[in-house]
């Protein structure tokens, strides 16, 4: 195997292997351009949130007259309440979603039963039924949940329960559990462990990597929900932060700085979660993509 010059086929284009002063200059320019185009707008939010920005033409990548006023004024506009609502929804939703996914995946990966294919097909088909397309009937169902006849409109529960099951998480978890050797489980069963104990003590600890994947994906998925809170919220006291941005923008009393401060608070949680769990995220990205 000829492997002369390590990294000669490190990439298809060979762009990242350009050397010499010109090569470095070209690469530097391209990377800088990409950073400005893709990260620049988000950087402008960060900078703007801490600056006195009277109008959109004064947006910049360098702080101008540092201030925390935007945040204090945002808090006067209940932004902390919206943030709290967002955290309640994402916390409750994620807890339920992970639990439901683990239980379902354990059945799909480990149990033999008639109709497995039907169940898998149903789960796959839910991924073609997003909140957007179902919006109108979903709002009716949320106003009068079948069988139990509860009205979830105007409650945070109404934003949590519909995301409590997510096909993507179930499928990722199922694929992962299938790879866990059955022998480990059988040993525990001889010792008389029941179903839930096997799941909690054998399967779950081994599933940590997959839990990370569905955790970070669930977090960003729920944090990015817009249609569901829009359908459920009746007044501002139930707004999640992403939902509240539109109201803040159209409020004449609120300046651009305040909107950017609130935007920063709305973008930070998912960005931080992503940065903390980047490895798991990339894993889920490729496995999820393969599943469609």
């Amino acid at each position, binding site marked *: *195997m000829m492997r002369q010059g390590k990294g000669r*086929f490190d*990439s*298809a*284009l*060979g762009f*990242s292997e350009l050397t010499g002063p010109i090569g470095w200059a070209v690469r530097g320019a391209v*990377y800088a351009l*990409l*950073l400005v*185009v*893709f990260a620049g*707008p*988000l950087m*402008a939010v960060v900078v703007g949130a801490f600056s006195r920005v009277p109008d959109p033409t004064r947006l910049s990548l360098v702080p101008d007259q540092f201030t925390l006023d935007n945040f204090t004024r945002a808090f006067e506009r209940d932004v902390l309440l919206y943030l709290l609502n967002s955290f309640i929804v994402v916390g409750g939703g994620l807890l339920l979603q992970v639990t439901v996914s683990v239980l*379902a995946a354990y059945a*799909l*990966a480990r149990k033999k*039963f008639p109709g*497995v294919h039907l*169940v*898998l097909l*149903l789960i796959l088909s839910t991924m*073609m*039924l*997003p909140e*957007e*397309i*179902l919006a*109108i*009937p*979903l*709002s*009716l*169902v949320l106003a009068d949940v079948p069988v139990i006849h509860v009205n979830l409109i105007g409650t945070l529960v109404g934003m949590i*329960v*519909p995301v*409590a*099951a997510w096909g993507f998480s179930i499928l990722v978890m199922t694929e992962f559990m*299938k790879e866990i050797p*059955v*022998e480990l489980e059988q040993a525990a*069963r*001889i010792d008389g462990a029941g179903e839930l104990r096997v799941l909690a003590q054998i399967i779950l600890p081994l599933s940590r990597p997959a839990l990370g994947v569905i955790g970070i994906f669930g977090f*960003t998925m729920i*944090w990015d929900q*817009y249609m569901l809170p829009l*359908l459920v919220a009746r007044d501002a006291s139930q707004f999640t932060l*992403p939902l509240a*941005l539109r109201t803040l*923008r159209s409020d004449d009393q609120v300046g*651009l700085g305040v909107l*950017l401060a609130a935007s920063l608070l*709305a*973008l930070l949680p998912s*960005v931080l979660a992503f940065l903390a769990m*980047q490895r798991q995220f*990339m894993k889920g*990205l490729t496995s999820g993509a393969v599943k*469609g």
Partner: protein
Amino acid sequence: MTSTATADPREEPGRAGPQRPRPARAPGRLRRTRFRDPAAALLLLLPALVIFTLFKFIPMGRAVQMSLFEVRPYLGDRWVGMDNYRHVLTDPDFLDAMWHTAVIAVTQTAGAMLLGLAIALLLEGTARHLWLVRTAVFLPTIVTMAVVAEVWRVLYYPAPDGVVNSVLAWIGLGPSQFLNSADTSLSSVIAVGIWRHAPYDMMIILAGLAGVDRTLYEAASADGANTWQRLRHVTLPALRPVFIILLTLAAIRGMRVFTEIFLLTNGGPNGSTEVLMTLIYKLGLERNELGIAAAGSVVLLAVTVVLTLAVQAVRARRRA
């Protein structure tokens, strides 16, 4: 379950995978699991199935049902057969919205994939600084759409000294009205979508690039192929499955486009960016035309399903 170790070690993974054929097993074991497994499976799957039934399947059924009625709260629904569908498929507003949706779906998908491919090729490699640039470039995908929309409304500020207009001025273009003019609103909205989705496509393509057999590159360059030929004949064919996957995801994503339109233009100005979902939302929740809105949803759903199945069929045929 008994602990009898199976003779063939490959039998166990087969047991775990419901899609694979069942291996032959001792009758005693079969009988014990036949009753225990289905009961346990049902209990374990119950939460997921209940949630899906309540918030996916029942709403879907309701949509189909409502689409056949003129829905009149307190008065009782009136059966109208296919009238709502006729309205959806002939009404100029709906036809415009379908056209805009299709334009957005196609151009955003193509734009994001091409840009994503270009960036992926530029940023492929194992060096630490490449990883940093990739992470930063990926951020638009992570940020919630509501923030993306607010940021771009600010960047698109239509005065000559707005941010994007300033950049355009450097290269001798603009100023543009962007979201404020019916001539530029649709392309402005599409650009935001490409900006947000290209980094996602980039990451998937990068994963595909990492899987390309390096010996093929070596063989190609031993045969005297230049970089372009290597790209054209080795890299791109190897990425075909990745492109098909991205196409499937984008088809579903593109048809249901809502949040960015709702926040950037809400369909305006003058209906120039109205898409199916914003129109359905307005009809259903603001004008109470529930039957027509439901028919629109069903049409949208049907298109999504057909698109998905079509891509899957292409995928299956390619593989065969």
